[in-house]
Structures are given as structure tokens and as C-alpha cells.
């Protein structure tokens, strides 16, 4: 029994000892594990700190703020750069609301929504927003982030970077302002300003272009003239010129061209087109500017009409002065015709008429009749009203025609005339009847200027020469009393006259006619007796010859 009890006690003691030992062992084991875990935790924290320190360094060096938002703990870790960016103090702990509080109120809700959406959907986050600083100043911050999940479905961390883009935003705003300013500059311009690509599509247009085409600037961009202009001829012309500018890489000046607007009205434009050169010297676009010269053109047309009417009136008046010469010009062939016809009748009455002679007489009658017809035709041209066309005019032939026309008048006035015509003169560009009128007028004036001069001194010389600068110069030189010195510049003024008859319009009309020919008319007193009147007319350009 006692053995049994002892044994039991012993067993109990051993058991207790074992149990205590086991418990100790367990406690030891736990302590050991805790120590290891603590060490591991300590190590992990150290690593994290080290990583944060490294991120801080990198963040500072790159001037990029870094951050992590633990959404579940609502704790935001930021680098010093981020604190500086958002105006957080060096020590304050930051949660999501504190982060949002730094953002401009107008941008805050959008940033909050975007951040939460990213967390929810696992998307990347990117926003640009304004940050308000303690001093009230604003800076623009660009933030990019991505979501990192701790477990399969639980979003845990939104991690990313922030950087100050205020300078870029400032430049963009400046650029925007400059663009808006330039836009206003080109839109306020009453001229048409545009750029087109090789396909004729507008890449730039100002308000005036849109107005002409009855559309908006935005609607015009990417479209061509054909989309807005029903006049196929005009569109074809624009395309041709545009291609020429882009192919030749040369600026083109178009003195006059027509554009039909959205309401079907025709506008006259003066246009410059210039290639927009790429760095390699080629061009894919052209820049154009067109001035609406419709009003000027209309004024010019009105003035031209008035000028033509005045010139016509002046010609009619001059013709009355020339009636004697014209009668002579016509009477000469008529005299020949009549005498020839009467001679033929007489020959035919002979017993054996010489038919060869009769035939010859008839030929002469035909020729003289034609000549008389030409005189009449010349008169008709001089009396013609309305639009007159420019044509190549032979300067010396013009002088000879006018001299022939005036010959008998000069003869009656006792004027001895000579011509000094430069050989091989090029043609001038002009309206024949108007140049004839100017020369006639100057020659008639020259004759009038010598009325009081002794007959032997009534000498008139008409000469032509090349000025070497693209003009043929006509000179009418008389031996009269000259122009009173003070009046030399005034003789071309309307109503200026030294004659007892006449309105004083002849030279004023001459000046207008010559100026309309892009020429010049002037007068000088001769060194000896009399005066010389000159006018120059541009030589016809080669492509017009």
C-alpha cells in the first residue's frame, strides 16, 4: 500500500515535475519565438525605415514627391519633398483628409473621387490640381499613383509620386494667352488670313475667311474651298496657284482675283501666297493673306469709265478741230476713185478700149475704196465709246499715223514738221486710240503755240526714243513762245489754258490717259525757243508681245 502510495506520490511528483518542465519548456519556446519575432519585426522596421530614407533621398534628389496611402489605416506616408510640395510640416502625421485639405477647394472633390475610384477599381491614378499654400499662393501639382493590394481582393496601398508642374502650367497658360491674343489679332484683321495644306484643306483661317464663306472658323478647318465655293473656275484657279506656290517654293503676288462669297457676291481680292517651309526646305503648307479690294476696284472701274467718257468727249472735240485733215484724208482716195472711174468710162467709149488698162483702173479703184474705208474705220474707232482694250502698239507707226492725220492741218498752219524715230523700238502696251489722242493733242497744241511765230520758224519735231528703263518716250517739240515758267507744272491741271479758245481740259485728259497706261507725261521749256512735251509708255512685257 505504502509502496503504492509512494509510487503514486512519486508518479505525481514526477508528473508534476514533468508538467512543470513541459510548461517551462513551452514558456521557453514561446519566449524564444517572441524574441525571434521581435528581432524580425525590428529588422523589418529597420529595413522599412531604411527604404523610406532611401526614398526620401531619391525623392529629394529628383524633386519628385513620393507618398503611400494605406487606405485601411488611413495613414499617408510622404517624403520630405512631398511635405514641401503640399505645405505639410516636417513632423505632422497625415491622413487622407489632411492630404485633401491642401488641395484647392475647386479641385478637391475631383481628386478625392479619382483617388477613391482608383482604390476601388485598382486603376492607375493621375490628376493635375492646384495646391494652396499657407501664404495663399497656388502651385500646380501633377500626381500619378497605382494601387497595390495586400491580399487578393483587398486594396491596401495607393502609392505614387507628385511633382510641381506650376512652371509648365504657367508656360501653357502663357502659350494659351498668346494663342488667344494672336487669334484676336488675325480675327480683327479685315483681310483674309489662311493656311492650307497640299490637299487644299484649311489648316488656319481667320474670321473674315469664314465670313466670306458663310461659316465658322472651326467648320472651315480641314475643309477645302470646294466645300464652300460653288464657282468651280475660282476653285480651280486657287488650287492651281496653291500648287504653284508649293511646287516652286516661291511667294506669289496675285494683283487681282475673284472670290464668290456664300451669298453669291463676287469679291475682288489682292492676294499673297507664301510657302511655309519645313526644316528640310520643302513645303506642305502655304500661308495666304488676301485684301478685299472690291470697293477700290469699283472705284477704279468708275474712274476708268469717267476717264473714258472724258477722253471720248475730248476726242469728239478734237475731231472737230481735225475735220479739215480728215476731209483731206478721205477726199484723196475719193478723188482717185472718181477720176479713175471717169477715165475708165472714157476709155470704154473709145473704139478699141485697152482692157488691161481698164482692169488696172478697177484694181486701183478697189484699193482706194479700201483706203477710204480705213479712214472711216479710224474715225469710228476715235468716236467709239465704252470699253477699250489694251494691245501692242508700234510707237513709230503711231507717230506716222498721227502725222498723216495732221499733215494737211499743219500745212495750212504753215508748220514744218519733222519726225525723228528711233529704229527697232519695242511695242508698248496701250489703248491705241488713247495714245493717238494724246499725241494728236500735243501736236495740235504745238501748232497752236506757233501761230504768232514767223512762218519760217514754225517747226515741229516729233521723236521717239527708248529710255532704257522699260519705257518708250514720245517727244513733241515746238518753236513757240514756251510755257510761262511758273506754269510748267500746272499745264496738266484741269482748266489750265493759255489759249483764248478751249476749256483747258486737253492736257488734263492727256495726263489721266497716260497715267492709266502707267506712264508719265511732263513738259519742259526748250533751251532755245519753245517747249517740249514728253510722255512715256511702258514697253509691253515679253509674255504680252
Amino acid at each position, binding site marked *: 500500500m505504502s509502496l503504492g502510495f509512494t509510487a503514486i506520490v512519486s508518479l505525481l511528483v514526477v508528473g508534476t515535475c514533468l508538467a512543470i518542465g513541459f510548461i517551462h519548456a513551452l514558456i521557453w519556446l514561446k519566449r524564444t519565438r517572441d524574441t525571434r519575432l521581435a528581432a524580425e519585426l525590428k529588422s523589418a522596421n529597420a529595413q522599412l525605415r531604411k527604404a523610406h530614407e532611401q526614398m526620401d533621398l531619391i525623392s529629394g534628389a529628383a524633386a519628385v514627391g513620393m507618398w503611400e496611402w494605406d487606405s485601411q489605416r488611413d495613414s499617408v506616408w510622404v517624403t520630405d519633398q512631398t511635405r514641401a510640395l503640399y505645405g505639410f510640416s516636417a513632423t505632422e502625421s497625415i491622413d487622407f483628409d489632411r492630404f485633401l485639405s491642401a488641395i484647392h477647394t475647386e479641385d478637391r472633390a475631383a481628386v478625392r473621387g479619382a483617388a477613391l475610384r482608383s482604390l476601388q477599381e485598382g486603376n492607375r491614378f493621375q490628376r493635375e490640381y492646384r495646391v494652396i499654400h499657407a501664404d495663399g499662393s497656388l502651385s500646380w501639382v501633377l500626381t500619378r499613383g497605382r494601387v497595390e493590394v495586400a491580399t487578393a481582393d483587398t486594396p491596401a496601398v495607393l502609392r505614387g509620386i507628385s511633382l510641381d508642374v506650376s512652371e509648365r502650367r504657367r508656360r501653357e497658360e502663357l502659350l494659351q494667352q498668346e494663342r488667344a491674343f494672336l487669334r484676336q489679332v488675325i480675327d480683327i484683321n479685315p483681310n483674309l488670313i489662311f493656311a492650307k495644306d497640299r490637299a487644299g484643306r484649311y489648316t488656319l483661317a481667320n474670321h473674315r475667311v469664314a465670313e466670306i464663306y458663310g461659316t465658322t472658323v472651326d467648320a472651315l478647318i480641314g475643309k477645302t474651298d470646294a466645300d464652300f465655293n460653288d464657282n468651280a473656275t475660282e476653285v480651280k484657279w486657287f488650287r492651281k496657284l496653291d500648287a504653284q506656290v508649293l511646287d516652286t517654293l516661291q511667294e506669289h503676288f496675285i494683283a487681282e482675283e475673284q472670290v464668290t462669297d456664300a451669298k453669291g457676291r463676287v469679291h475682288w481680292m489682292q492676294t499673297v501666297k507664301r510657302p511655309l517651309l519645313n526644316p528640310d526646305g520643302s513645303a506642305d503648307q502655304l500661308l495666304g493673306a488676301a485684301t478685299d479690294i472690291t470697293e477700290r476696284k469699283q472705284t477704279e472701274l468708275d474712274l476708268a469709265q469717267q476717264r473714258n467718257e472724258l477722253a471720248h468727249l475730248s476726242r469728239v472735240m478734237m475731231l472737230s478741230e481735225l475735220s479739215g485733215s480728215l476731209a*483731206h484724208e478721205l477726199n484723196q482716195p475719193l478723188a482717185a476713185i472718181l477720176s479713175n472711174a471717169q*477715165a475708165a468710162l472714157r476709155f470704154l467709149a473709145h473704139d478699141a478700149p485697152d482692157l488691161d488698162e481698164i482692169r488696172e483702173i478697177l484694181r486701183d479703184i478697189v484699193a482706194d475704196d479700201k483706203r477710204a474705208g480705213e479712214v472711216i474705220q479710224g474715225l469710228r474707232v476715235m468716236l467709239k465709246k465704252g470699253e477699250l482694250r489694251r494691245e501692242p502698239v508700234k510707237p513709230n507707226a503711231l507717230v506716222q499715223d498721227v502725222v498723216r492725220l495732221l499733215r494737211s492741218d499743219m500745212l495750212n498752219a504753215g508748220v514744218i514738221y519733222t519726225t525723228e524715230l528711233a529704229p527697232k523700238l519695242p511695242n508698248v502696251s496701250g489703248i491705241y486710240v488713247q495714245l493717238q489722242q494724246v499725241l494728236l493733242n500735243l501736236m495740235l497744241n504745238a501748232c497752236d503755240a506757233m501761230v504768232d511765230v514767223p512762218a519760217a520758224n514754225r517747226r515741229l519735231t516729233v521723236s521717239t526714243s527708248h529710255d532704257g528703263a522699260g519705257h518708250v518716250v514720245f517727244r513733241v517739240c515746238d518753236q513757240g513762245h514756251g510755257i510761262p515758267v511758273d506754269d510748267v507744272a500746272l499745264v496738266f491741271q484741269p482748266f489750265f489754258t493759255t489759249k483764248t479758245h478751249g476749256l483747258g481740259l486737253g492736257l488734263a485728259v492727256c495726263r489721266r490717259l497716260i497715267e492709266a497706261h502707267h506712264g508719265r507725261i511732263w513738259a519742259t521749256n526748250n533751251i532755245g525757243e519753245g517747249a517740249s512735251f514728253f510722255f512715256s509708255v511702258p514697253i509691253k512685257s515679253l509674255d504680252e508681245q
Partner: protein
Amino acid sequence: MNKTPPLVAIVDDELSVRRALERLLRSAGVEVRTYASGAVFLDAIQTHPVDCVVLDLHMSEMNGFEVQAHLMRTGKWLPIIIMTGHDTPDSRARALAGGAVEYLLKPVDDQVLLDAIAKALANDKP
């Protein structure tokens, strides 16, 4: 008596008029010489005198008045018939004052011219 046909000079600087007048006078049996200018005519009559001259007024080098004046100056009396296509009261008066037998206007009828020549030849002495 063998009557020689009258010899008439035509002075006109236009060929077509000279030719026509020459034919007309020839068709009427008048002998004709033509001259293209007053100077040539004055020179020619030194050696080849004529009975009458039909003289145009409006010629480019030497006009009819000058020819008339030259004949007057040199004392060569010759019946002159002036013909002109450009009539003015002054020129008519001047021509007649200068001794012209007739002052005719172009175009002139054949009979008028022939009558004028006949008249001139009948009065071929002052």
C-alpha cells in the same frame, strides 16, 4: 496746121491720185506728165516746159503755195489749177491771189477739170 496736144503737168505727192488724174486726162486726149513733188516739178520744167499745171496744195515736202510762189518769184508764168482735198476760205483766197486760174476741190468731176484746163490753156498768157 498740125496742132500739138496740150501738155499738162500733174503735181501730187500721192501716187494713186497722180495715176488716176493722168489716166483721166489721157482718156480725154491730153498729154500728161506727173510729178511726185513740187521740187521735182520745178526742176523738170527747166528743161521740159509744160502748158499748164494741176497742183495739189497739201504735199509734205513743198506745198502747192510754195510751188506757186516759186514760179511767181522766178517769173515763169504758167497757168496753175489748184486742187485740194482740204478746203479753207484762206487757202482759196491765197491760191487765187497767187495767180491760180482755178481752185478745185477733190474729188473733182472730169468735166470740171477738163473745162478748167481748157480755160487755163486759153489764157496761157497774162
